């Protein structure tokens, strides 16, 4: 018969266990490890960093004043009198306007995603965890906004409110909150059905503790991945709004707005007119690729 008291003596099985092939790591540590060994993602992440830094330090780097017009130096090609990227239709230096414009374009892309992640994520976790009527109410409300194509919704809200950078950001936040909410809700509902949640409840944990220690950690992954993929879309949408005149007002530089005002001049200096679009494209694609890399690093299958 088994001697129950024997449990007080630890089983000496340590000797039989081989030391692990890899170091024991927490989840986030392993994510960083995978990222560090992913050269493609690192390259694009550094480009993103460069773009952000360039925009941040625009006042220090820009060779000219982005607002200074010049009647005689209008629509000049690349390299004319030290204007590396030419001048626009009012004679202003393109490079400087690009750098300053980056601040607006980047913030109009990133800020709405951040706010939408916070609000949508919170609503999604609440709905997913509460289930039942609360969840249905939240998700049906989100579904109404989902019924609009994103460009249309953004244009509708920003357009009705009269444009401007604040309204534009508000419109974009409203566009991104429903999908964020849906991602968070799906993840939370999946997690909630798993046994370890019930085990936590059986240990005596309160709802708040369960959400804090078990749900958030598992939901944060998908939410973060989705948010990072939204940033590239946000930059495109934000510059699209500016292109239509619903973003900042001239003469403030912004990539979308610059494309719009330069459109008339494509017959004169086509290359210069295309430049702001290149900036948008490069920024967007780099964010996209970094987000793909993050997904690969974070999406661990057992």
């Amino acid at each position, binding site marked *: 018969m088994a001697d129950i008291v024997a449990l007080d003596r630890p089983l000496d099985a*340590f000797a039989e266990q081989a030391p*692990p092939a890899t170091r024991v790591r927490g989840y986030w540590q392993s994510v960083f490890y995978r990222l560090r060994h992913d050269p493609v993602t690192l390259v694009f992440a550094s480009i993103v960093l460069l773009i952000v830094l360039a925009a941040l330090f625009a006042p220090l780097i820009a060779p000219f004043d982005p607002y200074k017009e010049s009647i005689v130096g209008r629509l000049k090609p690349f390299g004319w009198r030290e204007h590396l990227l030419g001048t626009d239709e009012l004679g202003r230096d393109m490079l400087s306007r690009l750098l300053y414009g980056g601040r607006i374009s980047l913030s109009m892309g990133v800020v709405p995603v951040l706010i939408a992640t916070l609000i949508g994520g919170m609503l999604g976790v609440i709905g997913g965890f509460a289930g039942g009527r609360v969840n249905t109410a939240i998700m049906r409300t989100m579904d109404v906004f989902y019924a609009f194509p994103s460009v249309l919704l953004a244009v509708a809200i920003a357009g009705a409110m009269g444009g401007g950078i604040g309204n534009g950001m508000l419109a974009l936040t409203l566009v991104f909150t429903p999908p964020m909410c849906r991602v968070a809700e799906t993840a939370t509902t999946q997690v909630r059905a798993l046994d370890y949640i019930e085990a936590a409840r059986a*240990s005596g944990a309160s709802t708040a503790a369960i959400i804090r220690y078990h749900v958030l950690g598992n939901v944060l992954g998908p939410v973060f991945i989705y948010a990072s993929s939204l940033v590239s879309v946000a930059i495109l949408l934000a510059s699209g709004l500016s292109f239509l005149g619903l973003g900042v007002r001239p003469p403030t530089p912004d990539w979308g707005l610059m494309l719009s005002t330069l459109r008339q001049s494509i017959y004169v200096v086509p290359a210069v007119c295309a430049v702001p679009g290149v900036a948008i494209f490069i920024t967007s694609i780099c964010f996209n690729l970094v987000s793909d890399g993050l997904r690969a690093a974070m999406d661990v299958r057992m």
Partner: protein
Amino acid sequence: MAEVIALSPALDPRDRGGPLQPMLIARDLRKHFPVKGARGKSVQAVDGVSFTVRKGETLGIVGESGCGKTTLARLLLHLIVPDAGELIFDGEAVNAPDGLSVNALRRQVQMVFQDSYSSLNPRMPIRDSVAFGPFIQGREKPEARNIARDILAKVGLDPDLFGP
């Protein structure tokens, strides 16, 4: 008569009721789930279940899937509240005004789940998962972690392998 192997009280301070006190008595447990839509009808998952488990005994409940085994297990842990009936753990009535609180019950009764893949939080080191129980019951994190290390060592798992 089955031989009952029990720890003598002198060896186990957790035994408050004594060797003759049954570990668990379930009396007439009942849990019905209303069927959505059909008024009045309900699924009678657990309907008047009573049993006694003495100390040192193991009770096996067998049944086809859907017969209410999991619901019964959940009732025993008070993860769901029974519609009727009572539970007596080591002599104290659970969730009764002067009996054992549900929280105290949780300190002494636990469930081992069927699906091992979903039993553990994939984002938590195993040591922390084990430490979660004591932590949520009021211990400080370092203390809970030490308890976890002890338990892991006791069952033959090297604690250093299961937590940073």
